[in-house]
């Protein structure tokens, strides 16, 4: 990968309780979450987190409730202070920042989208969209056009004079996204941004986000508890459990090679045909011999099966950026569709 690392989390610990520093010693000595709660009455929020987030990528942090994912994202703009560790943004440790520097970071370089939208109910949609600009002290005349532009971009053109409560949940979250985009920051934090929306709207919003991302190339850190959503959005997937990173890497990789039983359980219910892409299951190397046709490396397996019309004797040439990079036979597709548990066992043998 040639992309630069934009945000980097180094040995981050967060312990909730009256004397976190003392508890930190125990945690570093290897005390686990249940033991810490029982012996010291401290809650272990995050345990030695190390994640690199690359510029222009969507990093998805996934975990069930209580895994510490919302705590983690709040460390990136210091809404929560860590017990120990470093958060490095553009090469600077933001934990060394003073109040003014931190405010500048929040105003200009990081924006945030919230699960419950958190729009200001007493301001109009346009004023909400321009919140970051208004906070920086620009007069209204300067930011109205900018707000309208971003509202248009998220499909809410003409709603600028409404109040948030007049909009549906999905529309309110579009305002939330427009608000984050209008701040013109290159890092976007999204805390379960789509979790409060119903499934169809959620899919729409995911598509909107991917579409915006293809154009704007922001560094996005996205929190979710939904694996389908994580796999759809992620360039880099981090799975969190009980405050620890269980596995991180390319989503396809995690799906094909789950590191432990916890993740195996997780990926067991996934529609693999839709999530797995040709490039992760193909045989590499220049394809030879008879081919039934060309497919793109980023096609998912479902589309290949549809293309083959169920026939098992097809063999496809895989193209990436106009060049042949490998081949794919139908039996290898079938093998990839079998959940990881059994494939893991075959690998061990």
């Amino acid at each position: 990968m040639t992309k630069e690392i934009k945000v980097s989390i180094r040995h981050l610990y967060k312990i909730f309780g009256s004397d976190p520093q003392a508890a930190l010693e125990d945690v570093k000595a290897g005390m686990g979450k249940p033991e810490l709660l029982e012996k010291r009455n401290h809650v272990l929020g995050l345990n030695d987190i190390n994640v690199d987030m690359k510029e222009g990528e969507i990093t998805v942090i996934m975990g069930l409730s209580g895994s510490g994912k919302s705590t983690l994202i709040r460390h990136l703009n210091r809404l929560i202070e860590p017990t120990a560790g470093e958060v490095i943004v553009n090469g600077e440790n933001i934990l060394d920042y003073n109040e003014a520097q931190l405010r500048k970071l929040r105003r200009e370089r990081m924006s945030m989208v919230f699960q419950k939208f958190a729009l200001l109910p007493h301001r109009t949609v346009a004023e909400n969209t321009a919140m970051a600009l208004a906070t920086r002290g620009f007069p209204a005349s300067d930011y109205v056009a900018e707000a309208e532009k971003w509202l248009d971009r998220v499909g809410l053109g003409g709603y600028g004079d409404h109040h948030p409560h007049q909009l549906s949940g999905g529309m309110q979250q579009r305002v939330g996204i427009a608000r984050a985009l209008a701040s013109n920051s290159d890092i976007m934090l999204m805390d379960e941004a789509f979790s409060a929306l119903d499934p169809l709207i959620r899919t729409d919003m995911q598509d909107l986000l991917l579409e915006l991302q293809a154009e704007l190339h922001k560094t996005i850190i996205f929190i979710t508890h939904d694996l389908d959503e994580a796999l759809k959005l992620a360039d880099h997937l981090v799975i969190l459990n009980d405050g620890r990173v269980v596995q991180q890497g390319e989503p396809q990789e995690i799906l094909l090679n789950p590191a432990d039983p916890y993740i195996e359980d997780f990926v067991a219910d996934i529609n693999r045909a839709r999530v797995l892409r040709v490039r992760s299951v193909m045989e590499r190397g220049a394809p030879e011999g008879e081919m039934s046709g060309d497919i793109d490396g980023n096609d998912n397996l479902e589309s290949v099966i549809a293309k083959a019309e169920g026939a098992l004797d097809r063999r496809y040439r895989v193209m990436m950026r106009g060049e042949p990079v490998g081949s794919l036979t139908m039996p290898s597709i079938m093998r990839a569709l079998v959940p990881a548990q059994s494939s893991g066992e075959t690998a061990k043998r």
Partner: protein
Amino acid sequence: MAAYENFFNAVGLKDWCSAGGDGGGGMTSMADLIAQTDGTTTQGPSLWNWPFPSLDALNKACGAIPPSRDVTQGLEDGFLAIRGGLRAVVDPLTQPLSWALRDMLWIMTNTPWWLMVPILMLITWLVTRSWRLVVFVLVSIAFLAFINHYEAAMQTLAIIFVCAFICVLFGVPIGIAMSRSDRLQRTVIPILDMLQTLPPFVYLIPLIFLFSVTEPKLYGIAIILYAIVPVVRLTDLGIRLVDPDVIEAADAFGMTKRQKLFGVQIPLALPNIMAGVNQTIMMSLAMVVIASLVSAPGLGVLVLRGIRSLELGTGLVAGFGIVIIAILLDRVTKASLARIDTSKSRK
């Protein structure tokens, strides 16, 4: 034979007691006199009517212990001793209140009625935008004027306007400060509880000693102390109730504390603050009647006259006038509250 004499003898304090004065000496109470004439003094109390070891009972047995009368006397002496100093500080500080009350009373009673009534109607229109309430204000004041209570009603209104305004002026900042500091909240809440539960007459006693009865600030302070409580409480509550998610968003976008306070917290707490203002106005109305005991002019004076000289009709009519003013103020403030509420959060 006093009840606790044996006790003091037993612990060997007899000398100390007699050195302090003669046991049971000094004032003779009515009960003592009755007991003397009954000839029952020689008998000590039985177990059945054994006295509680109060200051008075102990004083009887041992002269060195002061009777409870000395305690109240001491409190009074103490207050009188600091009165001069307290007055030197508080008097100039509160002088503007006297001016404000005097000027407001002068303006509202000296403006001709045909100018005053339209002004009040205009204010009603500006804060409520409701024609029904404007008409209601007109009818109520016209009725009060018709039964010759116009001047008293205007005096009452003038006092309420000044006192309620000052309550808001001080109460809202105190409430904001309380909402930002748990420690301040913990110290202020008992004071507010005390102000709210202390019978209103009790405020008047030290105030009479501090200020001259001719000064309007005497009743002004009494009213403000009594009526400031709800606006402080509801401002504090309103700001604390602002959705934490919205506050977090404000933080995440780098708002300063000031931007957060004026851009987010106060606007969102405004319905609660306005409910506090409504309560404050109603409570100053309640107090303005009691304050007529210390020369507050207005309808309360007429009620007081009704009680003092048993003029049933005067008292009842003035009381009815107060009810009308109460309804008037309540409806107008509630309507303006509803207007703020809907235009901001529920339109």
